[in-house]
């Protein structure tokens, strides 16, 4: 525990809370009519997971140094304590005893708490975004991209729902979902581009975060099916009935609440990224080693999720969704809304990334990408920066996955395959690694090409095209499309100005307000 007095007090309070809880448990254990306390294997699993999350929360708390960080960490710990209390009240304390809570009560409590947390997070997020935009200076190009995305978010649904099918600009239904899928891929590409282009971390396993977000929303959608499944079981999804399971595994609880599911979409990839990154960056694993380890991570998850007894649908995954938030998932209006949501999410994500890299934070990122050792010598805790960006990037990928699944209608463990993650990397490479717009463009172009190839007679040639793309782009187009365009643009401007080199509009045109000067005094 560290830093400010507020942090210390907060930490102390939480510790006291935990101790009280433990004491209560012990006391209850010694009361004569507490004999109904039974802790079975499922409870032990739950408590085990809870303990791990508690440790992570404490680790977050100990690494947060600023006041804001301490508050966030404190909130995290408070949530974990709340979860512990729910476990205590629901599973450990037997029915009939005081403080026991029926499961419906617990579900309701979780629903409202998660809704509150989500609202808080949304407000905090918007405030943070505002703060970012105030501190950083985004060029007009940034706002242009956002404007285009918002335009698309409105135009496509309008052109789909409110124009007749014969209208030349009509967007057919299948195209709405298809383009929506492209947008979610673009968001994934953005998350990969953020850590690769600005941190120098080549993650070959980001598909794992994408898939985890997808599974989280998939679990919500499965719970929404209710009794309309093949086996007509109101509580258990079909695949569980098929496996003769009696009740929901503990980690499926509360997923019928949308706020909880949404939080999990960001929290699960985020926590995994935090744990993984904390270990990896602390021991200064870099470069190729790190890439291989990320690939191993997603491969391990692939193996795990393929198992039928892991509780996530096995090799069939989760599918046959019926509705989302009460709306039929297949209806054109729902699809259009999902499309719009994807576009808006992409816009927000882009804005956030753009603001991040335009601020001093972004400068530090570029510095540690190119000269990590030197950056350390300047006093910057490189691990913290990498970890922060890695976690944010993972959460973005999770959101992308969560938007992907309702539009595609299925999530299966194949999404964890290393091939998917590496394909995301090529989208970024094609578009332009050092930029933020590049990944978006690259993802769209490559996936469009993929659709064209794989739905036609040229299907067997797609792997050649994809493989060829990898080779050609790395050899001849290392800056990607956008990067190369930028380079040519800069060269042309230099030639026009004739004399000293101008401010090279680096990355996303973060520039200083100082205008370029005339001839230098010292000769080159």
């Amino acid at each position: 525990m560290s830093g400010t007095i507020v942090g210390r007090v907060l930490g102390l309070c939480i510790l006291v809370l935990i101790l009280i809880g433990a004491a209560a448990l012990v006391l209850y254990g010694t009361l004569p009519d507490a004999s109904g306390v039974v802790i079975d294997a499922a409870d032990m699993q739950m408590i085990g997971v809870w303990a791990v999350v508690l440790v992570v929360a404490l680790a977050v708390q100990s690494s947060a140094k600023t006041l804001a960080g301490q508050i966030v960490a404190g909130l995290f710990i408070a949530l974990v304590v709340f979860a512990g209390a729910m476990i205590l009240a629901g599973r450990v304390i037997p029915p009939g005893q005081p403080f026991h809570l029926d499961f419906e009560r617990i579900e309701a409590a979780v629903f409202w708490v998660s809704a509150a947390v989500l609202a808080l997070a949304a407000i905090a997020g918007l405030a943070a975004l505002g703060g970012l935009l105030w501190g950083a200076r985004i060029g007009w190009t940034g706002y242009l991209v956002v404007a285009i995305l918002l335009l698309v978010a409105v135009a496509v649904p309008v052109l789909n729902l409110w124009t007749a099918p014969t209208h030349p600009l009509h967007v057919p239904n299948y195209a709405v979902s298809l383009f929506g899928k492209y947008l979610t891929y673009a968001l994934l590409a953005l998350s990969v581009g953020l850590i690769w282009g600005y941190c120098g971390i080549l993650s070959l396993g980001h598909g794992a975060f994408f898939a985890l977000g997808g599974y989280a929303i998939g679990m919500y959608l499965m719970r929404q099916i209710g009794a309309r499944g093949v086996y007509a079981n109101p509580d258990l999804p079909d695949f569980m009935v098929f496996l003769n399971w009696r009740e929901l595994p503990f980690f499926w609880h509360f997923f019928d609440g949308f706020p909880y599911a949404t939080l999990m979409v960001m929290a699960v990839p985020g926590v995994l990224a935090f744990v993984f990154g904390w270990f990896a960056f602390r021991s200064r694993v870099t470069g190729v080693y790190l890439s291989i380890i990320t690939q191993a991570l997603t491969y391990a998850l692939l193996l795990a999720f393929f198992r039928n007894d892991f509780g996530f649908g096995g090799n069939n995954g989760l599918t046959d969704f019926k509705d989302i938030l009460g709306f039929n998932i297949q209806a054109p209006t729902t699809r259009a809304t999902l499309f719009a949501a994807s576009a808006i999410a992409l816009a927000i994500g882009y804005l956030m990334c753009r603001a991040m890299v335009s601020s001093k934070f972004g400068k530090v990122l570029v510095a540690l990408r190119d000269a990590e050792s030197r950056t350390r010598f300047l006093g910057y805790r490189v691990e913290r920066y990498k970890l922060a960006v890695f976690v944010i990037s993972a959460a973005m990928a999770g959101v992308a996955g969560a938007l992907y699944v309702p539009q595609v209608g299925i999530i299966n463990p194949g999404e964890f395959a290393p091939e998917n993650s590496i394909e995301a990397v090529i989208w970024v490479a094609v578009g332009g690694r050092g930029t933020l717009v590049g990944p978006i463009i690259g993802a769209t172009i490559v996936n469009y090409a993929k659709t064209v190839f794989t739905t036609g007679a040229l299907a067997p040639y797609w792997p050649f095209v994809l493989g060829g793309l990898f080779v050609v782009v790395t050899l001849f187009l290392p800056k990607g499309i956008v990067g190369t365009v930028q380079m040519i643009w800069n060269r042309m401007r230099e030639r026009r100005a004739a004399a000293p080199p101008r401010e090279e509009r680096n990355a996303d045109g973060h520039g200083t307000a100082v205008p370029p000067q005339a001839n230098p005094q010292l000769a080159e």
Partner: protein
Amino acid sequence: MDDKLSQTVLYLDGVNVSFDGFRALNNLSLVIEPGEMRAIIGPNGAGKTTMMDVVTGKTKPDSGAVFFDGTVDLTKMDEASIASLGIGRKFQKPTVFESHSVRDNIVLALEGSREPGATLFGREGAAQTTRIDELLRIIRLDGKASWPASKLSHGQKQWLEIGMLLAQEPKLLLVDEPAAGMTDAETAETAVLLKEIARTKTVIVVEHDMAFVRDLGVKVTVLHEGSVLSEGSLDHVSADPKVIEVYLGR
């Protein structure tokens, strides 16, 4: 002993460092007083750069004591923490951030919170802008603030790095071969700059250029094979037969 310790900025005692059998530092003992500028000279492989590595936390000594300001044990800290203490280093090879502009290099080095939160949400205030401009003026790069650092000449990069060092507002500066690759004119100007800096800060300069060292006019320590061979004014060490034999020649 404690008295002596507390009056020092940098205190090295019996420091040993070996790389796979090669003794880089051999029972090195060195004391730097507050506010002084010290020149450290010696042949190649004498351990000058390794000594700086130890002080800045890049290399952990096998044995020996390294104290900053009399109380802080540097052997227990890593690079970033040591940098935050106020120990700044300018490297042998100029290591400015090539992908950043000159101004951004200074901005990154500028004294201030290094926390991600601070860099994310912070905004450059007026005081900071003034300080940045001042520094740019000192290192004669105020006209090239928006140039990418990769486009600077070698000498300019050296000065930029000195500027970055100053921006950190360090208490102790470790300057490794500041005159390397410079013209005579530039070298003379660098000496002037360093003497100016030394008025308010403690500076250790490692150099080969004897004219430059003479220009500095400060106490000199000669290192040889990882330990101190001779110490004193430049004239004193130049006359020392051991030093002549090993380094300066007749």
